[in-house]
């Protein structure tokens, strides 16, 4: 019997309507944008107007696919981050906690399943749906600008290879980012579980007060520094933005040339993000996360 699979299925039953709507946001936005004939681009800080007819077809297709995939991912991820603190006490709120507690399921897996579903699986699925939406949008986009033949003439092997590489990089990056953000996420969940609706305000107020006290009386901005480091590393988990030689990407590259180079660059970027894990801060993050998870288990054991 696969308990975890069933608990994930429960998340699908409970949230599928919202998830489907959110996952289709990129398609809706794309169709709306397609209704416009001009795109306003901002290149290297210089405002420029470029009619989409002037853009190379491969760039348009890449923009549609990667853009829709990224939009799907980020919208889903932000919604999940917003929802996750409430997961800790949703069953208490709808009075179903005692039903779930009557099942022969461990507390840890009961808590881990919704986190896995909301923080990892849903954003990744939304990215996949976004990419599929982007493919459909690229057909419409190129049919409107360069003709349908241009869409069939695209270098699909490279384009799909890059898309796959991007998805793998984001998937792995999400894992790293979630790892770096886990103390913050679990702190918010534990605060919400124990202090109910006052949990998040109390947590924010507590962090600010402790941070200020430490800074004022001990001259150590350790709270701000730690928070900043966690957020920076979480961001780098998704994308370090460094070329192998250490040169930052400036977005002014030829898209066709990038197609061939990008998978290798993404691989190196993933290695760079992995190297970030070798830092004492990770131990602190894991320790705080484990402590908060234990608090969640304790709270759940107490039932309603």
């Amino acid at each position, binding site marked *: *019997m*696969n*308990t975890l*699979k*069933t*608990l994930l*299925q*429960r998340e699908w*039953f*409970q949230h599928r309507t919202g998830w489907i709507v959110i996952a289709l946001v990129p398609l809706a936005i794309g169709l709306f944008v397609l209704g416009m004939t001009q795109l306003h681009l901002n290149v290297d800080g210089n405002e420029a107007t470029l009619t989409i007819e002037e853009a190379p077809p491969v760039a348009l297709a890449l923009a549609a696919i990667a853009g829709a995939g990224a939009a799907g991912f980020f919208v889903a991820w932000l919604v999940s981050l917003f929802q996750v603190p409430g997961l800790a006490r949703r*069953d208490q709120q*709808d*009075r*179903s*906690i*005692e*039903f*779930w*507690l*009557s*099942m*022969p*399921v*461990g507390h840890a897996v009961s808590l881990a399943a919704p986190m896995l579903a909301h923080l990892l699986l849903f954003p990744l699925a939304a990215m996949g749906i976004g990419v599929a939406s982007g493919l459909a949008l690229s057909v419409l986009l190129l049919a409107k600008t360069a003709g349908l033949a241009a869409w069939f003439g695209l270098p699909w092997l490279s384009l799909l290879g890059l898309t796959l590489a991007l998805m793998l990089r984001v998937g792995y990056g999400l894992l790293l980012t979630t790892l770096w953000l886990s103390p913050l996420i679990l702190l918010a969940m534990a605060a919400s579980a124990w202090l109910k609706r006052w949990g998040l305000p109390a947590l924010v107020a507590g962090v600010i007060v402790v941070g200020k006290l430490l800074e004022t009386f001990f001259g150590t901005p350790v709270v701000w520094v730690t928070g900043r480091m966690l957020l920076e590393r979480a961001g780098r988990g998704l994308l370090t933005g460094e070329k192998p030689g250490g040169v930052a990407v400036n977005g002014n590259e030829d898209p066709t040339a990038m197609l061939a180079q990008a998978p290798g660059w993404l691989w190196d970027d993933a290695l760079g993000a992995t190297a970030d894990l070798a830092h004492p801060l990770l131990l602190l993050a894991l320790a705080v996360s484990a402590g908060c998870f234990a608090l969640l288990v304790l709270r759940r*054991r*107490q*039932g309603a």
Partner: protein
Amino acid sequence: MSDLLIEAHELTMRYGPRTAVDHVSFQIPKGRVFGLLGHNGAGKTTLMKALVGLLPAQGQLRVLGLDPLRERVKLLEQVCWIPDVAVLPRWARVSELITMLGGLHPRFSAERARTLLARTDVSLRDKVSSLSKGMVVQTHLALMAAIDARLMILDEPTLGLDVISRKAFYEMLIDEWCDGERSVIVSTHQVEEIETLLSDVLMLNEGKLALAISLEDVDRRFVALSHDAAVAADMEAAHPLLRYRVQGGSAALFDGEPPQHLLPLGRRIRPSLVDLFVALTRRPEAHRTQFQDAR
């Protein structure tokens, strides 16, 4: 395998300074239907939570030979627990609940759940939020009765339901689940309604076990004498457990045989569980009022 499904010895449970369950000892063999009776705050829910491993207890407690707190998951594979009315998740459809139970409970039979639900007005496509309270409880029982467990624990399962729903609930429980091997513990305030279903009673009074007895033994041990008002003083002088009104007069309830000289003054009647419950769990001030009323 032991015939005892539950063995509790000197169980004590506290919420801070308050003792909710106070040195309670009892045993529950297989094939019995136990009523757990007690006033609000008597410790019924606390005790039931200990039985399913959700609260720690001092003393010794074995349920199906397991330590509930340490082996909760393993225990719940063999125990059905309906903790309250209307605790099913409101967002779920009945068919989804069947799917989820099929994945979460190794002894759950989806086919049997569908068969049991077919005997109710509940459709598999219904959302829990669209069902009446009575239908939710029926659905919950149908789901739990589809679990091949050895023990079912029900905590006020029909609280707030109308009489038709309560009757349907207990009929399904007895007809579809009790088979002479399995046991049930049900806590309720509606003592008179389940009296005919019970084989044994446990009465809790302010955390203490006031009585643990089979209904056969109740008839043997407790005697009630109905009597006229003219002999009320004689009855009162014998210090019965309770004096109460019955149709056409008063009655005195005794623990054991009443004094011989009282027997000709009254007529033996069978004390109801409600009367026994009141007698053993009443508070002193309630006793005084009732005693005066009965004169």
